[in-house]
Every structure is written in structure tokens, then in C-alpha cells.
């Protein structure tokens, strides 16, 4: 039997402290008849090759087991694979899980088994995709919006271009926020800055800087001076739970 489900396990789940949880998860998947190939990400093999192998072998649903970064680290090429993506959050906390209506740990399996899907927009920066956001911290870079106007923080600030926003994940627009007072909180326990925020939306634009800037794209660093940004509407299909917010 070739299962249409395949699971990509984060390398951290190989740690002894997760051993029991992983065994219980595999049993839970079998109990819901959604068992499938399991690939464990390792340092010694490129994740892209591992994931492309799973798709070549017939996977239609690719489930990332770990935390948000387990899937987001691979997001730059996933939308082109034509598969439905899901998550089973097992490590730490998850920002994606509540948006996707998926519970933590073993409780997420029933949502996966229900095969409820929704299509969401996917952002592009340069030649790669992003699901959540692009952040340019502490910058004077200029944001050219659709060739019509240019925006920049006069004394420097943080530019954030978000794709996956509650209740607007299929509108074909990216949400831009510019914070000029301070960069986003460095530690989770710090309170967010109450400073006013610039907010607007765009479907296409470019980030331009005279100096090399470091962008954080889905949590991954990217360096350069010029980046085109855009959005592909309903390009990505996600497995979601009933309580989804996207």
C-alpha cells in the first residue's frame, strides 16, 4: 500500500526526551489510518532532496512534525511541489497552529485525519516563497510599492511584510507594517512597543537599499540590496482544523 501521507520529522525529535512522544504519535497516526513514510531531517542530507523523494514516491499530504520552523525552513520551494502541507506541533509553542486550527501534539492528529484543506496566498521575495513574513530590522531601506510610490522610515525603523494574517490569507495582498520607534521585542517576555505603526497593503513591490540589508524570511536570514516582493494568490494548500483563522 502506498500511503498518500508522508511525515517530515524535525531532527530535534531524535532526542531521547521526545522518544516516548514520537512512539505515541506513530501509534496515533496508525489508529487514524493515516500512517505513511517518515523522513527524519538530518544534518547529513539536504532536506530538499529528502522531501522531493517523498513527493516522487507518491506523497500527496506532507506533514511537518516539530515546530513552526520545521516547515517554514523549507517553505522557499514547497509551494511548487503541488502537495498539501500540514503540521503536527510537538516542540515548544507554535504561532501557525492556532492560525491553522491545529492543536498541539497528539491532539493535532484528528485534524490531519479529517483532511480539511484550504488554499492560502503565498508571498515571494526574490526567487523564493514565504508563508509568514519578511522582516527588515533597523533599516533605512526603501520600499517601492507597485512602481507608484516609495516609502521609507526617515530615521530608520523595522519594515515587516506579512502574508499569513488572520482573516486575510486569500486577499492577494501583503500587509506592510513599519515600526519606527524600536525594533520588535528581542525577548518574548518584553512588552510590545506601543509606538504608532505605519500600515498599508500591497500586491507587488521591491525593497531597495544602498547598503546590504539582512532580511528575515520565514525566520531565515537573507542578505542583499534589492529584492522584488509579490504574492501568488491561493498558491498553497494547507491541512487545517475546524477552528482555523486563515
Amino acid at each position, binding site marked *: 500500500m502506498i500511503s498518500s501521507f508522508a511525515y517530515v520529522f524535525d531532527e530535534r525529535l531524535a532526542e531521547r526526551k521526545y522518544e516516548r512522544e514520537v512512539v505515541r504519535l506513530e501509534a496515533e497516526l496508525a489508529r487514524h489510518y493515516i500512517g505513511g513514510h517518515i523522513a527524519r531531517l538530518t544534518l547529513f542530507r539536504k532536506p530538499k532532496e529528502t522531501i522531493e523523494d517523498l513527493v516522487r514516491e507518491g506523497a500527496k499530504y506532507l506533514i511537518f512534525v516539530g515546530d513552526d520552523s520545521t516547515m517554514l525552513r523549507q517553505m522557499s520551494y514547497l509551494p511548487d511541489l503541488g502537495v498539501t502541507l500540514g503540521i503536527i506541533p510537538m516542540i515548544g509553542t507554535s504561532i501557525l497552529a492556532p492560525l491553522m486550527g491545529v492543536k498541539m501534539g497528539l491532539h493535532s492528529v484528528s485534524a490531519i485525519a479529517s483532511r*480539511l484543506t484550504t488554499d492560502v496566498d503565498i508571498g515571494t521575495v526574490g526567487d523564493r516563497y514565504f508563508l509568514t513574513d519578511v522582516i527588515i530590522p533597523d533599516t533605512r531601506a526603501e520600499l517601492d510599492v507597485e512602481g507608484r*510610490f516609495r516609502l521609507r522610515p526617515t530615521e530608520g525603523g523595522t519594515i515587516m511584510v506579512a502574508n499569513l494574517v488572520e482573516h486575510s490569507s486569500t486577499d492577494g495582498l501583503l500587509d506592510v507594517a*513599519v515600526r519606527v520607534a524600536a525594533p520588535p521585542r528581542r525577548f518574548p517576555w518584553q512588552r510590545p512597543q506601543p509606538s504608532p505603526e505605519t500600515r498599508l497593503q500591497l500586491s507587488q513591490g521591491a525593497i531597495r537599499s544602498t547598503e546590504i540589508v539582512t532580511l528575515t524570511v520565514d525566520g531565515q536570514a537573507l542578505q542583499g540590496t534589492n529584492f522584488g516582493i509579490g504574492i501568488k494568490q491561493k498558491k498553497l494548500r494547507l491541512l487545517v482544523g475546524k477552528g482555523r483563522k486563515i
Partner: protein
Amino acid sequence: MAFNFNGKPDPTMDEVPVPSYVPAPAAPVTPPITVIAKGVRIEGDFGGEGDMRIEGEVSGKLTVGGTLTVGQDANIKAEIKTSAAVVFGKIEGNITAEKRIELKSTANIVGDVKTATLTVEPGAKINGNMTIGGGNAGAGATK
């Protein structure tokens, strides 16, 4: 998972995935508010369908589908077309509002004003022509 005749799961048959597609929850009907905060500069042909609040700098052309609010610290050098406007700060350029313009006591407009209804608080400054009411009605006035 398919079942065979004795009621047990049949491992030789593939599961029967019946994907149910659900559209995303509906987006809010009202267009989002665009905010240009202090410390941000915009140059060019800028605009938006919904309401807009400007506290920063804008130069060029500004087209707003909803109500434009110009904050006290805003610095606008633009040709403005909007549905309605509430002005606390300085505008250099002509402003046309389909419905109404409210000039607060701190407002300072250097340019022509054209609108159906104009409300001016004591202390507001206008240096330009005013056309109030529908069509081409209105006379030039300087305050």
C-alpha cells in the same frame, strides 16, 4: 482506509482520502485603515480605498477612497483627492473632498479647497481659493 468483508481494515487497499475543501474565513467587509505614522516618508502617487490616517510625510499625489485624517505633526505636500477629510496639521497643495472637510483649530492649508461641506474651527488657517457646495459653485476666499 478501506474495509474488507470481515470488517477489518484491508491493508492492500489504499485509504480513501476524500479531501474536503473549505474556503478561508471571510475577510472583514470594510477595507482596512491605512496608517502612515510619524517617522515615515512617502513619495509618489499614493492612495487607498479605505480610510487613511497620516502622521508622517507625504509628497506627490494622494487619493483616498474613505476619510483622510491629517494629524497635527503630518507634513503633506501633495495634490489630494478624497471622499472626506479631517485636518489637524499642515497641507501644502490643493485638496478636493467629495463630501466634507473639517478643519480643526491647528489646521493650516496652503492651497485650494474644494468640497461639498466645509467646517472650520477658530484658529484654522487657509491660504487659497475655496469652492464650497456642489458643481462649480463657490467663490475665491482667503482667510
